[in-house]
């Protein structure tokens, strides 16, 4: 198993390098000159050249790339053109917001999917099943930024008492109650996006397991239905669910982009969205790089975990 993980890690290196090249080339292709954006009112060509040199933008592209890369591997993602703050620090500051939102959403989505998916699978074609499959179908097609607006409209403005605020963030350490109150609507918005996929997966993998002979054996030997479902069915049915949920955790930053924008949450997603119009290259590069790397690493972890959970998968076959 160690060999398998090492092999996968080695294979990740060329892909990660390619990823950095793609990011670098993409960001530098952006139209307009960031130096002029930062020079503001300054029109003196000599001063503009000084700023250009200051930002390191006077060097040829390959030199800029290797400078950026050699710093990046040492954890230095450069400084924001705009605020002069180190990019890694800017990301680290906003990470708790994004992580809190993402983990709350994944937890919500997985718990609802498990409960409703199990009920659906147990009463196939029953009321819960029909309602949940139709909601699932609608859920994958519903734009989640519109859902976010509908939630804000309903709970922050229409329902008397304004149960939840329309947005904003209060650190947990400052006021835990207010922090959680402000988390509810964004978490529901983000969770709905993955709920449909998770529900569908729980239901279909449970249905697959119900058809297996060991379940018939468990029932035939007189085990109580509760034991058959929890001990024998769910345990096996959850293996494919782990893959999907793992990928969702890896893509937390992606989901946070829209949700943080709607709810004015100071997370990593919003940091990137705000850096784009001001052509703050290091910030955009940093966020895209971190989100790609975390996506790659979680994909690897999921593969390893998957093989670990399902003894039928041997690493030899995975390798072949």
């Amino acid at each position, binding site marked *: 198993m160690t060999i398998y993980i090492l092999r996968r890690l080695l294979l990740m290196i060329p892909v990660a390098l*390619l990823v950095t090249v793609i990011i670098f080339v993409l960001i530098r292709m952006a139209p307009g000159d960031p130096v002029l954006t930062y020079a503001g009112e300054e029109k003196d060509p000599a001063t503009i050249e000084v700023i250009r040199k200051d930002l390191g933008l006077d060097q040829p592209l390959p030199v800029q790339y290797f400078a950026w890369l050699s710093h990046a591997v040492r954890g230095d993602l450069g400084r924001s053109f705009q605020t002069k703050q180190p990019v890694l620090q800017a990301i680290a500051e906003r990470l708790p917001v994004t992580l809190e939102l993402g983990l709350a959403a994944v937890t919500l989505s997985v718990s609802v999917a498990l409960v409703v998916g199990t009920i659906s699978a147990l009463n196939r074609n029953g009321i819960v099943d029909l309602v949940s499959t139709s909601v699932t179908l609608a859920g994958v097609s519903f734009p989640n930024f519109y859902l976010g607006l509908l939630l804000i409209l309903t709970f922050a403005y229409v329902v008397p008492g304004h149960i939840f605020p329309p947005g904003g963030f209060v650190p947990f350490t400052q006021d835990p109650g207010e922090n959680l109150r402000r988390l509810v609507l964004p978490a529901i918005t983000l969770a709905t996006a993955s709920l449909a996929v998770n529900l569908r997966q729980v239901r279909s993998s449970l249905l697959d397991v119900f058809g297996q002979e060991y379940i018939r054996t468990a029932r035939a030997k007189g085990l109580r239905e509760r034991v058959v479902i929890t001990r024998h069915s769910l345990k096996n049915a959850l293996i494919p669910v782990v893959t999907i949920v793992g990928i969702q955790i890896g893509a937390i930053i992606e989901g946070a982009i829209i949700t943080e924008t709607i709810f004015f949450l100071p997370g990593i997603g919003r940091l990137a969205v705000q850096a784009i119009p001001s052509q703050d290259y290091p910030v955009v590069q940093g966020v895209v790089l971190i989100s790609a790397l975390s996506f790659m690493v979680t994909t690897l972890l999921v593969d390893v975990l998957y093989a670990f959970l399902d003894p039928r998968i041997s690493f030899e076959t995975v390798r072949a």
Partner: protein
Amino acid sequence: MSEAALPVVLRVPRTGRATTFRSFARRNPRMIVGGILIVVLLFIALFAPVIAPFDPIQVRLADSLLPPGVRGHLLGTDDLGRDVLSRVMWGARISLSVGVISVSIGFLIGVSIGLIAGYVGGAFDLLAMRAIDALLAFPFLVLAIAITAALGPEIRNAMIAIGIVAIPAYARLTRGQVLAVRGRDFVVAARTIGASPLRIVLRHIFPNITNPLVVQATLGTAGAILAEAALSFLGLGAQAPTPSWGLDINYSQRYLANLKWWMSAGPGIAIFLAVFAFNFLGDALRDALDPRLRRSA
């Protein structure tokens, strides 16, 4: 077959077109629902200039923020007095063209890479697949945002970005399919009679692998419409005053606190219906065309 059997076959009771359609519809309700919705959307997009009741861009401050149904504005008006229904109808043009164009970009490039990588193999296969892996290392929306930001926030660039992001799906799917049919008898036969590699790939292999690609393209259109709406919502797609569903929802945000819900209801429901139609049709096509990919859900 004996000649006497022939008239018997011909005497099978004729079902007529209507009956055939009815039985097809009964067997494939999702295909019909999705198909009809798509036809309606296409009709609206094509004929928006004729059927839209108002000019979608013209400002009429006297009609500002009218609720649905007042003065002939079925879905109400926005703060500049622009008719929401007309903007939704014109917005269909953007959404559907992004759907079609970006899927075509992803399809053409992805399928070509997949065909060559699968058939030729070797160094090209290795390099192309590593590049595809690198593209797959990015979450979908993050890459689309990065590309759109690089090319400049414009609807044309959003189409290109969504198209590029879609390439890996087609490339991988095609390559896998090519590998599966490459050793089949009809390909070997074609090679034996001296057909050129190009002819083998285009005339013998490609026609045999189209089913999963059609399914992928249909579901991909749904994804592309949703992605365009998200990019425009973030200000990276269509720019004002162009009528665009995602952009209009973003614009409506500022009137949310004043409870002007109708400004976003039209475009929101339009996005849902369009994405739903392609997802529905795609799922039905998958069940009909590609039983191996069929999900048990």
